[in-house]
């Protein structure tokens, strides 16, 4: 098994793994976007900035408070999620009665502010974040060396996606959420506090983005632009998958990450555009998205 289709096996599997890791981030971020959109009817343009904030909070916890990776994994989503709650309460909640496009414009503006502030504080060059000691090193899988941290990211992302799916599909609060997505007025009439649910949903979606940011910190360098470019690709992922189904967006995220990784092996120049090409093909054949409802 030295070569597959004339490609050295380590290169192929290496790119496949990279694709899976990118896919993990696409999945986590598009999942958060889908949950927020389902409940609030707002496309959260700030999502990329909140992903970046997650990574920065991890860095700050380590360098300013001496709290390591495991604390960051717990605290960063909570802290960034709280800023999300604040943003929803003070700004987004004022726009529910207006055209949805205003929500997009508002969150775009908030994203610009957050990214600008971080760029002024920390500059544009990235800052390193060390892989935690427990996850350093790599496993010899026989056909390739697998850095433990990268395997960890893929596994944790899958677990997190499944957990989100379970909460939404199998718990009482999830059933409220699904009901409120379908018909908020009726759910409110049953005495459930829908505005508070919207706030918590936004906070949870943002926390998910921050969680992804902490996972990303040791892999990518922590820099203010790390979310902006990612979020546009995630938008394409969301369009491809459609926002109707939770598992749909997770599967689409991982699949597109792998497609991107494979393209890097076989046709490197096209790797940055392949997801957009897939988006065009899906729109031409299934305009509602692979898992979407028209």
């Amino acid at each position, binding site marked *: 098994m030295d070569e597959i289709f004339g490609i050295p096996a380590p290169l192929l599997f290496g790119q496949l793994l990279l694709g899976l890791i990118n896919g993990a981030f696409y999945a986590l971020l598009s999942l958060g976007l889908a949950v927020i959109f389902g409940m609030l009817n707002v496309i959260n343009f700030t999502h990329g900035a909140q992903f970046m904030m997650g990574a920065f909070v991890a860095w700050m916890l380590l360098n300013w408070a001496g709290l390591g990776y495991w604390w960051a994994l717990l605290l960063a989503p909570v802290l960034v999620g709280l800023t999300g709650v604040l943003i929803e309460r003070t*700004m987004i909640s*004022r726009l529910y009665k207006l055209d949805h496009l205003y929500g997009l*414009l*508002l969150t775009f503006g908030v994203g*610009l502010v957050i990214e600008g502030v971080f760029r002024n504080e920390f500059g544009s060059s990235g800052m390193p974040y060390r892989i935690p000691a427990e996850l350093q090193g790599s496993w010899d899988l026989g056909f390739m060396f697998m850095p433990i941290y990268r395997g960890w990211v893929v596994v944790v992302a899958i677990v997190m996606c499944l957990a989100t799916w379970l909460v939404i599909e199998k718990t009482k609060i999830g059933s409220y959420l699904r009901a409120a997505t379908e018909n908020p007025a009726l759910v409110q009439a049953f005495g459930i506090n829908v505005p508070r649910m919207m706030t918590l949903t936004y906070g949870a979606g943002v926390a998910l983005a921050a969680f992804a940011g902490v996972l990303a910190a040791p892999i990518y360098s922590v820099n203010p632009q790390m979310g902006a470019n990612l979020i*546009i690709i995630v938008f*394409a992922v969301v369009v491809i998958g459609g926002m109707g189904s939770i598992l749909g967006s997770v599967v689409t995220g991982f699949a597109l990450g792998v497609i991107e990784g494979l393209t890097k092996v076989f046709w490197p120049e096209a790797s940055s555009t392949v997801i957009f090409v897939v988006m065009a093909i899906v729109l031409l054949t299934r305009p509602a998205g692979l898992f979407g409802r028209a």
Partner: protein
Amino acid sequence: MAAPGGFSGTDFKQEDTVFFGFTRTQLAAFAIMLAFIAISPFFLYPVFLMKVLCFALFACAFNLLIGYVGLLSFGHAAYFGMGGYLAGHAAKVWGLPPELAILIGGAVGAGLGLVIGAIAIRRQGIYFAMITLAFAQMVYFFCLQAEFTGGEDGIQAIPRGVLFGVFDLRSDMTMYWVVAAVFLIGFLLIHRIIHSPFGMVLKSIRENEPRATSLGYRTDDYKLMAFVLSAALSGVAGGTKAIVFGIATLTDVFWTMSGEVVLMSLVGGLGTIFGPVMGAAVIITMQNYLAEFGAWVTVIQGVIFVLCVLAFRRGIVGEIGNWLRVRL
């Protein structure tokens, strides 16, 4: 879907159109704008004014979609930037005169708009915005890798050339009058489109697309046509800017540029004729004066975005119109 311009609540005076689809108030506003364009180069820096006019045309083209069809394109930088690249390439490498270079910029915008628009109009609302943004990012990656764009360096030292073989554009004043003419032609063309029967159908799509469909209009064809026109004029604006400044770079195709044109239209007033012009003037002036603050400009623009959406949705011109109870 209601128009993002959202004039609801305003009780407009019924005004007759007196000339070329303008009402009396609009004619007065147009005269003020014309006078400003004619006098300003004598007391303001012409290169700065040319930048304002290029962006004003760009914002007007963008506003044609959001204000009159209700489509929010978040990827208009693609047509603006590609128009600039191709106009620059035509003038520098092919040695074409500036009038042809600018037209090529418009043609590239139209072609690109036809392809992207045909796919993007298959979805509405928020999806439309995300799709146009994603395709614009694809164009950006293409420009980053393509040979002729010069990658990170861009196309530099684009000659301004000689217009119609008569007017030497190396003089800033001559160049200014050409840019002013390009802007006015574009502005009046958009105004004419809005007030044509075609424009009426566009507005009916904005107000209620299913009903327009039920009346027998092929709404997709109308939307695509409006998209192509908007993209073409954005390409003209980008091409003109490349000729004026002699440079075409990645900045003009990047998503931040798409955001800027949205901001300009929002500040001036979505769905108003004069709003985008006002918005472009305000934002470009602001960028000029705040240039020394570096990255804070992004923060300030973000804050303006937030304030406009939360408290100032009519924009400057929209507020004035609301106050005077007239459509501007």
